């Protein structure tokens, strides 16, 4: 495979060459593999700076793209961990204690000093990145496999929007369970229609409803399952527009709302920090409006953590209030601010 440069990656990202978040995650890991495998760095700090540059330039140009930033922060964590382990092995010092790592001030924004030249570091980091890649590749399968344990016979489930992950989750469950899915059509994009068709072909009993009919049917529903773009720090989710109005009736009727998300979508962004790209594709082609008519179409919606029951990740199901813990496992405190 050809080497991928940072510029090429950003251009591809900018020109929307990647269809799925998974592709973005894999490609950004591949980019970082190239950077780690290159000869432009000697010490751990050099490498960390190179990685951070990727993160900052993505953030400056496309703040709404969280997945590549997540992957950068993940690799930074890997590098720091591997560096510390190797240094510990070489010098016979203990792995830095928990209290020590807790004392790092996340606000200072400085990555830890890793000034020693450790030749093994490169191989170790590449190994860890390869592991991470494998995890991403398997994530959809692992999540789908949990379908059987989460869905029971004769349940009524509401879903919305084209999300291959949720679709895989439901079809996997359908091999052993018999249940009914209600799909909201999601105007004006109407990607609920292909979803309903896909579910039908998988042999699942399906009903298509309009978005505004979600509330009246909610009393009969057992579960709501959605996918997401990003999981933010407080456990809330940034997802397709319309999700917020889909997520409040379950709260009212005490219906659980599950979010299927791989761990690479866990972001260190606050909910208010993510800016959105919006288009005006709500307007039918060729229509001319009076200039004073203002049209806007948001692409993402924020569902607060109190409306989310559980996040189904590739590791396990976690509650929104537990997201902070997951984040501290995934990322290094000094990389919270890129």
């Amino acid at each position, binding site marked *: 495979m050809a080497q991928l440069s940072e*510029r090429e990656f950003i251009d591809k990202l900018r020109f929307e060459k990647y269809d799925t978040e998974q592709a973005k995650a894999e490609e950004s890991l591949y980019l970082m593999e190239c950077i780690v495998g290159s000869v432009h760095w000697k010490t751990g700090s050099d490498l960390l700076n190179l990685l951070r540059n990727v993160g900052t*330039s993505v953030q400056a*140009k496309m703040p709404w793209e969280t997945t590549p930033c997540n992957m950068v922060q993940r690799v930074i964590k890997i590098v720091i961990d591997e560096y510390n382990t190797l240094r510990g092995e070489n010098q016979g010092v203990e792995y830095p204690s928990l209290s020590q790592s807790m004392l790092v001030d996340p606000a200072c924004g400085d990555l830890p000093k890793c000034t020693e030249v450790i030749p093994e570091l490169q191989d170790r980091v590449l190994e860890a990145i390869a592991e991470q890649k494998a995890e991403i590749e398997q994530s959809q399968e692992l999540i789908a496999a949990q379908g059987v344990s989460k869905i029971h016979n004769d349940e009524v489930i509401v879903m919305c929007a084209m999300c291959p992950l949720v679709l895989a989750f439901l079809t996997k469950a359908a091999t052993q369970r018999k249940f009914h899915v209600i799909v909201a059509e999601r105007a004006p994009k109407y990607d609920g229609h292909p979803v309903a068709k896909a579910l039908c072909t998988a042999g699942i009993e399906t009903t298509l409803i309009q978005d505004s009919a979600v509330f009246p049917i909610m009393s009969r529903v057992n579960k709501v399952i959605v996918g997401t773009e990003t999981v933010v720090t407080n456990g809330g989710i940034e997802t397709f527009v319309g999700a917020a109005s889909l997520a409040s009736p379950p709260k009212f009727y005490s219906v659980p709302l599950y979010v299927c998300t791989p761990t690479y979508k866990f972001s260190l962004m606050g909910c208010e920090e993510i800016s959105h790209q919006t*288009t*005006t594709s709500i307007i039918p082609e*060729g229509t001319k409006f009076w200039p004073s008519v203002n049209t806007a179409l948001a692409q993402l919606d924020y569902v607060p953590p109190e409306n989310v029951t559980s996040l189904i990740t590739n590791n396990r199901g976690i509650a929104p209030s537990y997201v902070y813990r997951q984040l501290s496992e995934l990322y290094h405190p000094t990389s919270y601010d890129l």
Partner: protein
Amino acid sequence: MAPKAEIHEEQVLQAVILAQCEQDYGDPVTQDVPKVLAPLANTPLLEYSLEWLERCGVEEAIVYCRADTHLETIREHCRVAFMTRRGDTTPATTHPGGLRVNVVASEDCHSLGDAMRDLYAKSLLKGDFILLQGDTVTTLDLPALVTEHRESRAADRNAIMTCRKTTTATLLVSASTNKLLLHRRRGGRSTSSRLSVPTELLQGAGDILAYPAAYDPSVTICSEVVPSLFSDNFDYSTLDSLVRGVIEQEELLGYTIKCRVLEGGYAGRAASINSLIGVSGEVVGRQAYPLVPEVSQTSHRVRYHHDAFTHTYWDPSAKFPKGSMVTGVVVGAGTEVSPTAHLQNTTLGDHCTLGDGVVVRESVVMTGVCVKGASKLEQCWVGDNVVLGEGVVVAPGCVIGAGVTLGDRVVLAPGTRLSARPPLGDLGGDVIEPDPAVCGVGGVAYVVDQEEEEEEEEEDEEEEDGGGGGGGGGEMDESEESEEEIQMSDDEYNMNEFQHEVQESLSTALREGAAAENVVLEINASRHAYNVSMEDVLTSVVQGILKAGQERSTASKGAEGLWPAVKSSITAFQGVLRNYVKKNRDQILLLNAVESLVRSCPPFLPLAKGVLFELNQTHEILDDEVIVAWYRGGAAGATSPLPALRTALAKFVEWLEEEEEESEEEED
């Protein structure tokens, strides 16, 4: 890169952006900024085209411009913009795959045809290429268009062009093959309410799609044949003339043009200030997504904060009210707007100050502008560092050039053009004091001569409805009345251009002593290019000959030498004239032409007699009877000459009549 490039040479996708080839926006604006770098939502227009081309995977963009004062600006801009774009300083060649920008300039480029011929001569175009205007903002799916074009070329080698047409023209397109059958730009010779369709078009063709008023974003995919066609036919000056030529001579050339009316995508042309404001509104309204104002098109960084529901974009350092009084606004860095200001669909540049109660609607305000309290601006263009006093009212269509200062309570009439530079051409050498009636107390502003600009303005108007508009298919909302007007101005414009060209070729020929046949050939070429009638040609030629003489005389001896020079000019071009004057009617036309010249240009009055004498006696182009009949106002289609000319010619005609009688007597 070299060996690889040779293998894939067919696949290198090029684009030609025509910058600065056609008319500019009126003087005050383009004095300092070339048209293609005029800001649209605080980003130069050219950036939008380049950005979209890069997105579409175009490998080389040729920015073609006229070599004038703005050339260096454009060149520098392309260079600097691309450095920031790449984020590094290494030459683009080390990064294969990106967009290379090549600025090509030429001394005399007045039309698209000239540009094409020049590019052909320089053989810069290697294969299929995308042709677009520098002032286009588009998000059309170009790769799909190019693929389609290549497919149709593979199927039929003679398909030379795929236009994305939704033109201000009437089209007939064959449904099955997408072949363009008829193309008639609005404002042609035919009356606009009726369309005559040659019956042979209807034979054989299955379905024909008619687009009564399609809209043209001037995006064309051309094959390498197109520049060579332009080169072979030196009278093709615009794409339209090429289209007409190819369709008319289909049997001869065997080329066809495919046409595609697209549904999706956005395209707008900012050909005039009004359409610039229109396109700007659409870009701010995110119709050209992903070309959106908050992302810098050069560095691709997110530069503005953005409110999706009021379509307001602002730099973090700008201070302005974010209430219901402000919608559809782009606010640059360091700009301060009073909380009581009212802004609508407006672009504010960097470091502007807007005072209390200022109302700005649908305007473009550039960098460093200061507007004091209670001023009102509507549909206008305000250049760099303009200062407007209290209570200034700027009516729609005004253009205020860079550095203008207006005093308190100045009211500008609609369509006023102001510049900070004194008008040129005054030989006195004194600094003209600005007129307080125009610019108020303590103001600095000069009205740019309206007459000079008139032609351009008409142009602007013509382009106007071509500029705005969304990406959809046919639009049919133009009223017929406006069509008529546009037709007038179009003809007039063509006529003026034609006259100018004839004048030019005659002057050159006189200087160089070219042969009559060559001059006639040249004039005929211009005639075809501008679609001018034979009568107008004759008029222009006659006037051109006389004026060419005048030019020569002023160059050499001054006013006294006028007659000999004109006489020699007539002698030199008698062959040319003979070619055009064949019937009695032509003689009348010739006389009328002389008359109208005298009317517009008094120095010719004393010469009229001499001119007629020369033509009548020495060269025998004019017959005695015709002159007499014309003089008496009797001949068919003739109008009697104006009084001054009448008196000037009285003696000559009398003498003619006498002579005639004498000769008759002799014959008897």
